[in-house]
């Protein structure tokens, strides 16, 4: 039997394999990079949308002051607000929470939230819609370890009670409007903090604690009851038109 020549280490073969591997590996990186860049490009659109939305809220606010309750469709804007917040979360994951672009978008979003809150408060009052507002101040994990849990509990309540409107703000975001909001409610430097309608609640609130608090404000309506409530609002709007 002759010797085994198959074992011979052909250097060129291994270099060729390395070349192809780098090519595929590099393509994977490029593809991922391309997608990230595309996402960042979409951020400019998002920024433009946020500006338009702020204008839209202002316009609706003007309409409302002229003819209360007529032709107001707040659910579209509320849903959009929710979509933007989800997009922002995704952007935060991609770019990092400290990215300047992300922080800028966050500021726009916070302004939009404040505008929305102002409009909806007035609408609820004028049109007698049973609505409860929660302004939630959170901070990063290091400053406020319980904020993530509190946020999840609030999301749960938002899903459970359709007439609950929750606005979340980063307590430490450098924004004049936010500073004013904090000073209006004379907030202490503490997180998590919730302002429910006009009452301030400091510290973490468990599901049961928050439920007890909310009972004071909300006529607890389940998702099934939403239909009835919506038809009441519609008929009120038609009557006023």
């Amino acid at each position: 039997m002759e010797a085994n020549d198959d074992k011979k280490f052909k250097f060129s073969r291994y270099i060729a394999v390395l070349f192809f591997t780098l090519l595929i590996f590099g393509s994977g990186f490029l593809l991922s990079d391309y997608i990230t860049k595309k996402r960042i490009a979409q951020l400019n659109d998002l920024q433009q949308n946020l500006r338009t939305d702020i204008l839209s809220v202002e316009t609706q606010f003007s309409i409302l002051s002229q003819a209360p309750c007529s032709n107001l469709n707040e659910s579209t804007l509320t849903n959009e607000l929710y979509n933007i917040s989800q997009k922002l979360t995704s952007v935060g994951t991609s770019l990092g929470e400290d990215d300047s672009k992300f922080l800028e978008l966050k500021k726009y979003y916070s302004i939009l939230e404040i505008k929305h809150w102002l409009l909806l408060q007035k609408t609820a009052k004028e049109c007698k819609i049973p609505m409860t507002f929660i302004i939630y101040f959170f901070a990063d994990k290091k400053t406020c370890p319980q904020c993530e849990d509190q946020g999840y509990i609030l999301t749960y309540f938002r899903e459970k009670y359709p007439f609950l409107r929750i606005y979340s703000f980063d307590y430490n975001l450098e924004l004049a409007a936010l500073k004013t909001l904090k000073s209006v409610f004379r907030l202490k430097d503490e997180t998590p903090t919730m302002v429910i309608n006009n009452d301030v609640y400091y510290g973490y609130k468990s599901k049961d604690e928050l439920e007890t608090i909310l009972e004071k404000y909300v006529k607890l309506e389940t998702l099934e009851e939403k239909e009835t409530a919506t038809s009441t609002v519609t008929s009120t709007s038609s009557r006023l038109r």
Partner: protein
Amino acid sequence: MMISEIFIYIGTFAALYFGILIFVTLYENRHRLYNEKLPERLPFVSIILPCFNEEKNVEYVLTSLFGLDYPKEKLEIIAVDDGSRDNTLAKMLAFQQNYPGLKVLHKKNGGKHTALNLAIPQVKGEIIGTIDADCSVEPNGLKQMLKYFNEPNIAAVVSTIKVRQPKNILEGVQYAEFMVSAFVKKILSFLGGLTVTPGPLSLFRKQTFAIVGPYKKAHMTEDLEMALRLQSHNLKIACCWEASVYTKGKSTLKTLSHQRLRWQRGFLLNLKDYLNLLNFKTHGNLSFLLVYAVVGVFLSIALFGITIFQFAKTIATNVNHGLLIKFDFAPFLSFKNLNLTGLHLSPLTVMGLVGLVMVLVFMLLGKRFTFEKSHIGEKMFIWVFVYPFLNATWWILTTLSIISGKKIHWK
């Protein structure tokens, strides 16, 4: 970048490199995937069947051997009973009544290697085959394998092992695994990189044993040790896609795990005994592949640990969420909560998909090149997701058993 990410990138790169090496080698050897020509003169072949407590299988394998498409006057079948405590010997003798050509040997139990070593000096054949009792060979299998001995420098030929009619998910997983293995082994044979002459049918030139000596106990993986020994003598092992041997898949996780622990433990301990194979100058491709395999073991353990950690973290977050809302998830069950914008396509996801596609291609090529006709279907997907976890678990247990010095048994 986190340490876990670095490990994942290295692991993915290594896997991709191996995959491409396989494809490049396939391309280089595309004109010699099969051997067309039968030997001008059919050699005398002796097939040894070592058995220990195989009363359930022995008749089946013997029937398969006597059904081989090969001149009877040139075929010798030797069944060796290695001191079975069941009716294996009686079944062999009963079979012999109908097939007088069967030679039956009996000895005190001493392990598979002793059974093989008892028969080898007694064979009449120029070619010696070894087969396990839980196997069956396709009728044309032997002739197909003999084609490879046309090349004078081939010392041994190994068959393509497949799982016989998988009945449960675990057997299905092994079926798919063996399909990938069948494809990869052939390609490795072109690199002189085969490290096992498996029990389910391998053929050797008789003079091979004169050169390398008899079988050894070899940490209960005598077939692995024999291949490493052939390699250390620079003898060539070929792989035959045309000959399919069907083996019984392990039907329980316990028996499968036991088998794999034995194999993996045998690989590491035998490699320790043949460290000379890591000499690149003498063993080139084989050294590279062996180093790659050992590094691969530790990478797969690391990747397994990372995956488990991340999985546990997700579970912990969900449990925490559940506790926070007293497991009242009903409000979240709404289509509006289906959010796809959060999907983050990282380089890792892209690489993972590439790896997944590569494994599936290996499996499909294995099926095609070995002329497998049965349907793979869902087994393919179960294998891809289940196997890496099982394999890494076995490697962890193997490493622990070696460190602790724990002994393992055949069954």
